């Protein structure tokens, strides 16, 4: 396969491991400082019913739960849960019999998400540390997988989607909000690791 020099892929430019570490560093550095993203993406009543830290930690690019058709009793995994805004919203929709699992690679984010769940009084949640490329869940163990601006951060996106397929039960579904680029950004932007954080 040939790659045009002006349309490089991130992993071609800075390496998959460096890309992962860069993304993790950016997320570690961001402690909720603004509710601007949440106010743009979520309904006012959803924002009002969640702890402030979960709202300020929202870094998604859409509202995957609106398309997930979650129902009481279902098991849903939020891939790359961050501070937990989508996990908490999902947990409420599958309660009382269902549960939500928040997965993130950063223990700092899982701690924040768990604290936010406790503050919201939401008990039907579990937390797991792991990567999308190696999801620490059994085969066919969830009804629904959601994510919000996360697949685009993974160097091996095909591998991540194959893992998501593995953990969703037959007949189950996914709702993945993500960024698409119809036209490449200039190479001077693409070579900046910070450009791959969103």
């Amino acid at each position, binding site marked *: 396969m040939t790659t045009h020099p002006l349309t490089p892929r991130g992993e071609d430019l800075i390496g998959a491991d460096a890309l992962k570490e860069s993304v993790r560093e950016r997320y570690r550095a961001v402690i909720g400082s603004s509710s601007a993203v949440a106010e743009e993406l979520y309904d006012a009543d959803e924002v009002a019913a969640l702890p402030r830290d979960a709202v300020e930690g929202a870094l998604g690019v859409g509202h995957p739960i609106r398309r997930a058709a979650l129902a009481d009793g279902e098991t849903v995994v939020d891939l790359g849960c961050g501070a937990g805004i989508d996990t908490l919203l999902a947990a409420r929709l599958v309660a009382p019999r269902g549960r939500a699992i928040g997965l993130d690679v950063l223990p700092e984010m899982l701690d924040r998400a768990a604290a936010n769940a406790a503050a919201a009084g939401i008990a039907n949640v579990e937390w797991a540390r792991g990567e999308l490329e190696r999801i620490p869940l059994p085969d066919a163990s969830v009804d629904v997988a959601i994510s919000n601006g996360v697949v685009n951060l993974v160097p091996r996106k095909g591998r991540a989607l194959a893992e998501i397929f593995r953990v969703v039960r037959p007949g189950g579904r996914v709702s993945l909000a993500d960024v698409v*680029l119809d036209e490449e*950004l200039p190479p001077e932007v693409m070579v900046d690791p910070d450009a791959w954080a969103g």
Partner: protein
Amino acid sequence: MPERVFRKKLERAGFTDIGAHDEIVFTIDDLARYPLFPASLIERMRRLLPPERQAAVARSLVFTARRP
């Protein structure tokens, strides 16, 4: 990655009934609201991208699909 590539990767993973919904267009000002992007990167993009591209730097979609 482009929408068609995302769809193709979902298909290759084994998913069916693939759909894309709820498009949001991100301007450079929208991106600047995300604390993940440092000011230096936003400034570089303002300098390098033509005005029409700054009005539509990227899109987001909600991809839905089912495991058969």
